[in-house]
């Protein structure tokens, strides 16, 4: 959700440049990975108390443990039958914001003709899928709110294949714990099976009635209005059904894994 440091988009949009500059300042760290590990500083409080918890690995471990506990609480809170609100087309946010861990000038271009979706793990029919084959499956649409972990939200219109139907179609083990996604832009994330089977969880192939553009994840993304933005991977190239915790790009750095809304 936060753009890569040390790079700026080429478009001269004043607001965007300011937003980026702010992030550059915030993220001017030698390494984002290191940043993640050292992240949990006690900024203001250490000033007040003179005690610095930055270096205390035990504090980070405790916070990580509570975050995993919160995964459990969210899994328990998750109602498979509760639908996220849907909106009329007039309420779609235009333009819908681009967001990734890199700038808009670095968007991954995937060749649609050469594209093959790979299936791995606990799946009965583990064959690759072409884009044309995916488009031939029954399609649905939703106009829902995308909520970013940063706090902002935007309403968009996504079309594609209901993920639950696809999982059943390929003979996925629906009792498995996790679905892991790998992406053409090296992003990766994973979700729980209950959310995977939710009625609004969608393998998205279109945005606003058009072929999904590269900036929104061509050729295919996963759309879940029940989870925060970073849980919705773009440019998906492989889907794996597994019982081994797969983590995720942001999750491994400290974002909450469940990320439910």
């Amino acid at each position: 959700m936060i753009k890569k440091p040390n790079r700026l988009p080429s478009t001269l949009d004043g607001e965007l440049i300011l937003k980026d500059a702010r992030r550059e300042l915030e993220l001017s760290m030698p390494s984002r990975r290191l940043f993640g590990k050292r992240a949990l500083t006690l900024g203001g409080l250490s000033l007040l108390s003179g005690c610095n918890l930055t270096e205390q690995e035990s504090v980070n471990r405790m916070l990580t443990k509570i975050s995993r506990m919160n995964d459990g609480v969210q899994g328990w809170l998750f109602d498979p039958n509760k639908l996220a609100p849907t909106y009329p087309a007039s309420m779609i946010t235009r333009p819908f914001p681009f967001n990734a861990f890199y700038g808009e000038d670095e968007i991954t271009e995937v060749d649609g003709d050469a594209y093959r979706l790979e299936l791995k793990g606990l799946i009965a029919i583990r064959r690759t899928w072409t884009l044309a084959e995916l488009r031939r499956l029954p399609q649905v649409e939703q106009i829902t709110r995308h909520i970013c972990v940063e706090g902002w939200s935007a309403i968009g219109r996504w079309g594609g294949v209901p993920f639950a139907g696809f999982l059943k179609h390929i003979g996925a083990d629906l009792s498995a714990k996790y679905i892991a996604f790998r992406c053409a832009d090296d992003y990766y994330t994973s979700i729980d099976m209950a959310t995977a089977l939710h009625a609004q969880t969608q393998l998205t192939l279109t945005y606003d009635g058009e072929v999904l553009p590269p900036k929104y994840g061509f050729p295919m993304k996963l759309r879940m209005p029940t989870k925060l933005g970073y849980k919705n991977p773009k440019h998906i190239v492989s889907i794996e059904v597994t019982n081994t915790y797969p983590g995720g790009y942001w999750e491994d750095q400290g974002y909450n894994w469940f990320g439910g809304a």
Partner: protein
Amino acid sequence: MKQPCIEETNIHAPARSTTSAIIHPLWLRVTHWTNALAVVLMILSGWRIYNASPIFPFSFPKEWTLGGWLGGALQWHFAAMWLLAVNGAIYLAINLLSGRARRKFFPLRPMEVLHDFVQALKGKLQHASLDHYNAVQKLAYLSVIADLVLIVLSGLAIWKSVQLPLLRDLMGGYDNARIVHFLAMSFLVLFIVVHVAMVALVPRTLLAMLRGR
């Protein structure tokens, strides 16, 4: 108006006098300081979360925030929320069930608030007895309790806007819940500033909150 009021939990007090009586029972002192810690953690990490996508044209200085980056701040926020909510629930339960809330905060009459407020501005408001709240105090404490409830509810609406549709609608939708959460935080910060200033003016109130009398 200023009659001594003895806590029902003060079973060890030999004589029922205001000098030796426990003003703040132990459970109150523990929940007060736990709440203070939770509130500080929540506000400082909350400011860092706010900075990731400000809803007003300003950000909080990074040195004032907790967590180092958005992910760290979120971990603090969603850890300290348990402390705030569980401690707050314990405080409310004991306070309501023991009858202390009713005795301490009521009756609360608008005219008394006005009178005590004017007296306070003139510097004439006396703290003759720490176990009796003046009308301004009653209003301030009741307001901040209600504000903390609003903070928790609006926070839940933001965190679980899909799973808690009733709360979401009550807050006027997801985006509006963020504004409610922010304004409730602002009121809390205002309260803390005034509260700490008043404690600085009457330091023995701090002693009472530490040792009970």
